[in-house]
C-alpha cells in the first residue's frame, strides 16, 4: 500500500492533507432551529475532495464498509463528472445512501482505513456519498432493473435500516416483499430517534419512496406478534420467509429513587415526541413536550448528544450532559460532540445520578450525583467507573433525559415459540442471519444489541442473500 502512495505522489501534485470542510449552519443560528446542521458539499467542493482519493489498487476503505460499497470506483466516476453512474455504483450495494452519507460513523469504518488518513485527514467518503445521493434525489430517482417475479413472498418486520435494506435487495431479485411496521411512519430509528437537524425526515421518506417503487408493500401501524404472529405469517398468510428487524427499542432506566417523577424522560420518549411526533411544532402538531430551563442529559452516546442538542433547540437555557466516565471514553461520534459543544452544551464528566428530588407536584427539581473515578477496563474495553465514597453533590434541574441505552424489543421473542434468544433478549442467528426457525431470519439491533445504522444495513444485506438462496431452493 505504501508503495502506491509514493508512486501516486511522484506522478501527481502532492495530495492535500486537509479534507475539504463541509459547510455548516453557524452554531449561534442552528441552536435555535431544527434545520440540518451540515449543509453538504457544493459540486466544486465534492470534486476537490474526490481528487484527494488515491484510487488504491487494493482499496482498504472497502474492507471497512459493512455493505462493501466499491468506494474508489464511485469516487472515480464522481471525479469524471459522471454523477449518475457514480450514484448507481453506490446503489449496487446501498439503497439508502443519503441516510448513510449523513449518519454512518465513517470515521470508524471506511475512513479509518483510508490510506490518505495515514498522512493527513482521510478522504471524506461519507460527505461524497451524501453529495451524490442528494444530487440524485433532487433530480428524481431512477428505478433499477428488477428481476422477473419469482412468486415467492417475504415478510419483513420493522421498517428501520435493516428491514429497508432486506426489502430493497429482495425486491430487486424479484420477490414480493411486505414490510410490517409497528409505528405509523416507516424508518424506525431513522425517524423516531435521529433528530431532524442531523437527518431530515423528508430524506428518509424519499429513500422509503424509492424502496416502495421497487414494488415493496408497506403496512404501517401493524405490530407483528400482537396482530399476526410469525408462525401465522408463514403457515396461514402465505409468506415463504420472514426477516425480523425490530431493533432495540426498549429504554433502560437507572433504577434510582425518584425516576418516576415528572420531567424525567427516557431518551426514547423524548426523541419520539420531538422527532416522530414533531412536538417542536406543538401546538400545530398535537403531541406536547415540556422543556425546563436546566436540562440534564445522562449518558454519553449519540443518543445523549441528540437529546441534549434537541433540548437546546426547544428553548432550554442550559443543557448539561452528565457522563460517568471521562471525555476519552465518550462513545458519541467526535463530530457530533464538537457540534454539540459549539452549540453551547456543557459536559460534566465522572459523575452518576444517585437519586432525584421532586417538588410537591411530583415534578423533578434536583438531582443528586456521586463522583466517579476510573478503575481498570471492563468487558466493553472502557475503564470502569467506580463511585468515590462521600462525594455526593446536588444539581438543580427541571428536566432530565435518561440516555443510557436501549435493549431489544421483546414482543416477537415472547410470541414466537421455538425462537432461540440470548439472555440479553437478542435473537440468535448464524453468520447469514438465519435464526433457529426455518425460513426465519433476523438482523440489526435485535441481533447485536444497540449498534449503528450501517451495521444493521450490513446484516440486512447478508440476510437478503441468504433468504434469496433459501427461497430459490425451496
Amino acid at each position: 500500500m505504501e508503495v502506491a502512495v509514493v508512486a501516486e505522489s511522484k506522478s501527481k501534485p502532492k495530495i492535500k492533507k486537509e479534507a475539504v470542510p463541509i459547510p455548516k449552519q453557524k452554531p449561534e443560528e442552528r441552536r435555535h432551529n431544527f434545520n440540518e446542521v451540515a449543509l453538504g458539499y457544493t459540486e466544486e467542493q465534492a470534486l476537490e475532495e474526490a481528487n484527494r482519493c488515491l484510487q488504491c489498487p487494493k482499496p482498504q476503505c472497502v474492507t471497512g464498509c459493512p455493505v462493501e460499497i466499491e468506494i474508489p470506483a464511485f469516487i472515480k466516476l464522481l471525479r469524471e463528472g459522471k454523477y449518475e453512474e457514480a450514484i448507481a455504483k453506490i446503489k449496487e450495494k446501498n439503497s439508502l445512501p443519503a441516510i448513510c452519507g449523513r449518519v454512518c460513523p465513517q470515521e470508524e469504518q471506511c475512513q479509518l482505513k483510508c490510506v490518505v488518513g495515514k498522512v493527513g485527514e482521510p478522504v471524506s467518503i461519507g460527505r461524497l456519498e451524501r453529495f451524490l445521493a442528494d444530487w440524485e434525489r433532487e433530480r428524481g430517482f431512477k428505478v433499477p432493473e428488477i428481476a422477473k417475479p419469482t412468486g415467492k413472498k417475504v415478510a419483513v418486520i420493522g421498517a428501520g435500516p435493516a428491514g429497508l435494506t432486506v426489502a430493497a435487495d429482495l425486491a430487486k431479485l424479484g420477490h414480493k416483499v411486505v414490510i410490517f411496521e409497528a409505528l405509523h411512519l416507516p424508518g424506525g430509528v431513522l425517524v423516531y430517534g435521529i433528530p431532524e437537524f442531523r437527518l431530515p425526515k423528508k430524506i428518509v421518506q424519499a429513500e422509503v419512496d424509492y424502496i416502495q417503487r421497487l414494488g415493496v408493500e408497506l403496512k404501517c401501524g401493524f405490530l407483528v406478534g400482537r396482530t399476526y404472529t410469525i408462525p401465522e405469517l408463514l403457515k396461514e398468510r402465505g409468506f415463504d420467509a420472514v426477516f425480523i428487524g425490530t431493533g432495540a427499542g426498549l429504554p433502560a432506566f437507572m433504577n434510582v429513587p425518584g425516576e418516576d417523577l415528572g420531567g424525567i424522560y427516557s431518551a426514547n420518549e423524548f426523541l419520539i415526541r420531538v422527532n416522530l411526533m414533531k412536538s417542536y411544532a406543538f401546538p400545530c402538531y398535537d403531541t406536547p413536550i415540556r422543556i425546563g430551563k436546566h436540562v440534564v442529559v445522562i449518558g454519553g452516546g449519540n443518543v445523549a448528544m441528540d437529546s441534549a442538542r434537541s433540548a437546546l433547540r426547544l428553548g432550554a437555557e442550559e443543557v448539561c450532559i452528565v457522563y460517568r466516565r471521562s471525555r476519552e471514553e465518550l462513545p458519541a461520534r467526535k463530530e457530533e460532540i464538537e457540534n454539540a459543544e459549539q452549540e453551547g452544551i456543557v459536559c460534566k464528566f465522572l459523575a452518576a445520578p444517585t437519586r432525584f428530588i421532586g417538588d410537591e407536584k411530583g415534578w423533578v427539581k434536583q438531582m443528586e450525583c456521586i463522583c466517579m473515578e476510573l478503575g481498570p477496563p471492563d468487558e466493553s474495553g472502557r475503564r470502569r467507573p467506580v463511585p468515590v465514597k462521600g462525594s455526593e453533590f446536588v444539581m438543580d434541574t427541571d428536566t432530565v433525559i435518561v440516555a443510557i441505552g436501549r435493549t431489544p424489543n421483546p414482543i416477537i421473542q415472547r410470541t414466537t415459540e421455538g425462537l432461540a434468544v440470548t439472555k440479553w433478549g437478542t435473537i440468535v442467528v448464524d453468520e447469514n442471519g438465519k435464526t433457529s426457525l426455518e425460513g426465519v431470519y433476523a438482523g440489526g439491533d435485535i441481533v447485536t444489541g444497540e449498534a449503528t445504522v450501517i451495521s444493521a444495513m450490513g446484516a440486512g444485506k447478508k440476510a437478503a442473500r441468504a433468504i434469496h438462496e433459501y427461497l430459490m431452493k425451496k
Partner: protein
Amino acid sequence: MYKILKNEELAPKIKLFEVYAPEMAEKAKPGQFIIVIVDEKGERVPLTIADYDAKKGTISFVFNEVGKSTKQLGLLKKGDSIWNITGPLGNPSEIKHFGRVLCVAGGVMIAPMRLQVKALRYAGNVVVTVVGARIKDLLFYEDEIKALSNEFYVATDDGSKGFKGLDFLKDVLAKEKFDRCVVMGPVVMMKNVSEITKPFGIPTVVTLTPIMVDGMGMCGVCRVTVDRKMMFGCVDGPEFDGHKVDFDGLIKRQRMFLPEERLSSLLWELHGGCRCGGK
C-alpha cells in the same frame, strides 16, 4: 385509513365509533387497547377496545370528548376515515372460571366492561356488576350490562341515580364472598375500589390507562410502580394488581402535561378547528 361505519353518542360528549379494521377484529381480545391517530399532525391516543366482530371485520371504541384530540375525533362522521389505528395492543384480560366476580366500571370504561362481563359470564362466572358515573346523564349501556349480569347496581357521585358513591360496596362485600374484582374507570375510582376490596382479601384487577406515546414498550412514559417495581403500562399491562399499584404516583404522572393539554384544547376551541392556533 380506517373508515368509520358507526358514530353513536352514548351520553353527552361520550361517543362510540365502529371502524372497519378486519385484521384487528380477527385478533382483538377483551382488555386490549388500540392507538388512534386522527390525522398526520395528531397525537397517539390510546383507547380501550369496546367491542369487535371478526365476521364483519369491525372494532369499536368509546371516548370522552375532553381534549383537543378527542374533540377533533368526535367531529368525524360516519363514512369519514381515521388516519391511523394500531392494535390490538397490550395483554388480553385473564378470562376463566373464577367463581363470583365483582365488576366495577366508571365513565367511558363502562363500554369495555360490557365486553368483560360478557366474556366472564361465558366462562361460567357469577358476575355482579356496578356501573358508575359523575351524574346520571353520563350513564350508558345500563340495560345491556344488566341483562348480561347476575346482579346489577348503579352508582353516581352526586346520588342522582342509584347509590351515592361506592361506599355501598362494603355492604355488598360483607354479605357475600367474591373470588375476584375487576375495576375499569378513572384512576381515583380504581384506587378507591382497590382500598375497599383489600380488607376483604379479594384479588383486584385494575386497567391502567397512563399517558402513552408509542404504546408498544418503546418510550417508557407509561411507567407505573407496582409492588415497588417499575412496570410499563403498555406492554406489562394494561391490567395490574390493584392492591399493589402506586396510585398516588400514577395520579401525579397523569397530570404531567395538563397545561399543554389545556392550551391545545383552548386553541382548538378558539380557532374553530384550525390546527395552528391562528398562526
